[in-house]
């Protein structure tokens, strides 16, 4: 299993080059900050939710959302491009290492990118919303969320047949999840029948857990769902890598 | 007719072309031969108004590409190195757009498309989308497109790169056919045998300069008639001789692994660019 390190290192070397281009820092920041201004200051200015002001409600949701998109998108599109365009995935497959090692290396790299982007949003949050604070439960949720969506990224990266496919998954899976899973407003505001559907999304449970300050029964259920998703995604992703054939 | 005087181009501090001059007469096939990075593509891109030049003059059928850009552009057709067809459009649609860009009326375009697809043996593919065509077919379509507006000059950038021998030969056949029908052809290549087989005149380009220019036969006879290949220190070396007898006696003095053969354009190229294999 110790072949994961070079895979992780490779992704980090690539990430380092992107990071210094500065464009990355902005693109990881621009969208969440725009959402923060538009919805936090513009639309929901005078709209209290669940006993706090809207912006304090919004920030944990934005953190969950950007940890999801960043851990997921990078892994999915990098694997897709490496497999289909740059062919660098061949190099990993032809190396004498266990397929699990590839999975672990890619997932850890995805998590790092997700956590990095989350920390940027948390910093912004601490600046603009004085009531917003951090504790151990949201931190744990965040890590679990990054792991889960990095695994999902591997799955999508392995099954897509072209780069356009990736954006289809993005449009029909990630985008609706970002909007409906309790990022911008509590799920209870959606119509009844949709609420059941929304309860299937993993991000819904992240949003429940990340807003809790202490564990309760609802929190435990959410945690159990997230762990179940994480395990399933991890093993399914590993299987796809093991079965890889051109 | 193409006339080029003292063409220069720099990319940053590096000179891609330094003072290239040549002229190509009507109905001639002129091959521009050189290693990757010698400036072949830069030259053809300047001649076809795709790239700026830093100095020098280019005239296509007496139109200066700077003073009369639109007229100069009407004189030529270009077959680019990389396929630049619209992959979502059909063969016919690609040609139609090209015709309209060259101000032809739709009736003439339709007639020319028919004629050219027939000429290039593509008639049965006129409705196919480009993404369904193979590399060889795309190359033939690129040639058809370049000929659509009946240009008198045809530029071809590496017309057979990446194609297998059988397809390459068929493209060569088409090139000769086009010349016989009255066009001037300027092509770049790094396949020596392509230049040897096709060209009336060959220019050797090395590091942005033309180092030799002549007919293939003259270039070859300049260095000798016979060549001996031998392995020296595990490197392939070649010696040249004016008669077979001299070559033969040279072989007798060497140990194993010698081949005697006729001198070809590749020998001339290596001899003149002076580039040893390091």
């Amino acid at each position: 299993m110790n072949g994961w390190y070079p895979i992780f290192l490779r992704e980090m070397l690539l990430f380092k080059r992107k990071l210094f281009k500065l464009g990355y820092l902005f693109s990881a920041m621009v969208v969440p900050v725009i959402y923060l201004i538009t919805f936090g200051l513009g639309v929901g200015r005078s709209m209290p939710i669940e006993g706090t002001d809207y912006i304090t409600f919004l920030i944990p949701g934005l953190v969950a959302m950007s940890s999801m998109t960043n851990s997921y998108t990078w892994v999915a599109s990098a694997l897709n491009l490496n497999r289909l365009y740059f062919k660098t995935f061949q190099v990993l497959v032809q190396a004498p290492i266990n397929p699990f090692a590839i999975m672990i290396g890619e997932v850890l790299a995805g998590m790092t990118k997700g956590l990095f982007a989350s920390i940027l949003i948390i910093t912004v949050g601490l600046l603009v919303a004085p009531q917003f604070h951090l504790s151990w439960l949201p931190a744990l949720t965040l890590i679990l969320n990054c792991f889960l969506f990095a695994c999902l990224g591997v799955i999508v990266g392995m099954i897509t047949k072209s780069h356009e496919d990736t954006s289809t998954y993005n449009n029909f899976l990630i985008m609706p999840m970002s909007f409906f899973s309790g990022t911008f407003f509590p799920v209870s505001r959606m119509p009844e029948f949709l609420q059941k559907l929304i309860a299937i999304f993993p991000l819904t449970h992240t949003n429940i857990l990340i807003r809790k300050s202490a564990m309760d029964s609802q929190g435990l259920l959410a945690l159990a769902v997230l762990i179940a998703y994480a395990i399933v995604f991890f093993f399914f992703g590993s299987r796809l890598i093991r079965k890889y054939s051109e | 007719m193409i006339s080029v005087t003292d063409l220069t181009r720099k990319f940053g501090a590096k000179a891609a072309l330094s003072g290239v001059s040549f002229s190509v007469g009507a109905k001639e096939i002129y091959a521009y031969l050189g290693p990757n990075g010698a400036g072949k593509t830069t030259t053809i891109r300047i001649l076809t108004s795709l790239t700026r030049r830093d100095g020098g003059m280019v005239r296509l059928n007496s139109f200066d590409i700077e003073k009369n850009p639109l007229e100069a552009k009407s004189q030529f057709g270009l077959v680019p190195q990389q396929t630049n067809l619209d992959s979502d459009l059909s063969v016919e649609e690609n040609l139609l757009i090209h015709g309209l860009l060259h101000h032809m009326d739709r009736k003439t375009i339709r007639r020319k498309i028919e004629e050219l697809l027939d000429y290039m043996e593509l008639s049965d593919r006129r409705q196919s989308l480009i993404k369904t065509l193979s590399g060889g077919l795309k190359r033939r379509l690129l040639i058809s497109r370049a000929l659509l507006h009946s240009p008198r000059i045809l530029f071809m950038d590496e017309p057979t790169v990446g194609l297998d021998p059988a397809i390459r030969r068929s493209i060569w056949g088409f090139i000769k056919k086009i010349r016989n029908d009255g066009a001037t052809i300027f092509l770049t290549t790094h396949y020596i045998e392509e230049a040897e087989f096709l060209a009336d005149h060959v220019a050797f380009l090395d590091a942005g300069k033309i180092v030799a220019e002549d007919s293939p036969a003259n270039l070859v006879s300049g260095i000798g008639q016979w060549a001996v290949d031998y392995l020296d220190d595990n490197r392939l070396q070649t010696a040249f001789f004016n008669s077979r007898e001299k070559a033969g006696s040279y072989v007798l003095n060497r140990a194993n692994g010698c081949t005697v053969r006729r001198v070809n354009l590749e020998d001339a190229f290596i001899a003149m660019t002076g580039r040893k294999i390091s």
Partner: protein
Amino acid sequence: MISASGLIKRYGPADNRCTVVDGVSFHLAPGTVFGLLGPNGAGKSTIIRMLTTLSRPDAGQCLIDGIDVAAQPMEIKKRIGVVPQENNLDRELSARENLMIYGMLHRVVHLPERISAALEVVSLWEKRDTVVSHFSGGMQRRLLIARALLTEPTVLFLDEPTIGLDPQIRRQLWDVIRKSRRAGRTVMLTTHYIEEAEALCDMIGIVVAGRMIALDSPENLRKIIGEYVIDFPDEYGNQIQIICRTREEAHEKARALPNGVTIRRSNLEDVFINLTGEKIE
């Protein structure tokens, strides 16, 4: 040592399957340079992909150094070096970083020294910290070869190693391949440059539409089609070849033709065109 028996590979959906490799078998002794020739799309790259664990054959077996590729892929991966047709280096990493990641993946010992040595061999030491996307095509190809040789594999696979390169660099790469053979390596390459196969290979396989239609030494292949060739141009300027068994036969036939006729020994290109047919798709 490489041996393949009855390799079959199909692609596409169940109702429209297309057989890309159709029962290919061969056996190579250690230290052989084997050239796989064939038109574009004949299945050459697919054969290489199956031998290098990238692609699973639908039927048949490959052995490398006596080890079954499908059963023990990990053992195979330790023994082979692969130079793919398309550059699969990380374009945004430097030459040294590319080799470093590869070396770590393959657990190469004394990695820094080995990387320096490999970069020296392909004359890229000066460029070690340059990002690969700034490399020319020839430099990228050299780096791919350095990478494949970094683990000192017993078997080297090269898929179209010199496509699109100019004559000087091509010959430089030939030298590297010859050195590999002298080091006792088995080398398998695909190419559609006939002169490359002629210059390098001890054994030639010609693949057409997924089948191996000829497999022998270049010398024997020439004997099979005929050792003499008459070249002459037809009225369109196309070069036409007639292949003859003996010199006498060639002279006999040449006499009946217009001028501009050359008689020469046959070469691999004649073999190729003769066996694959001068078909245009």
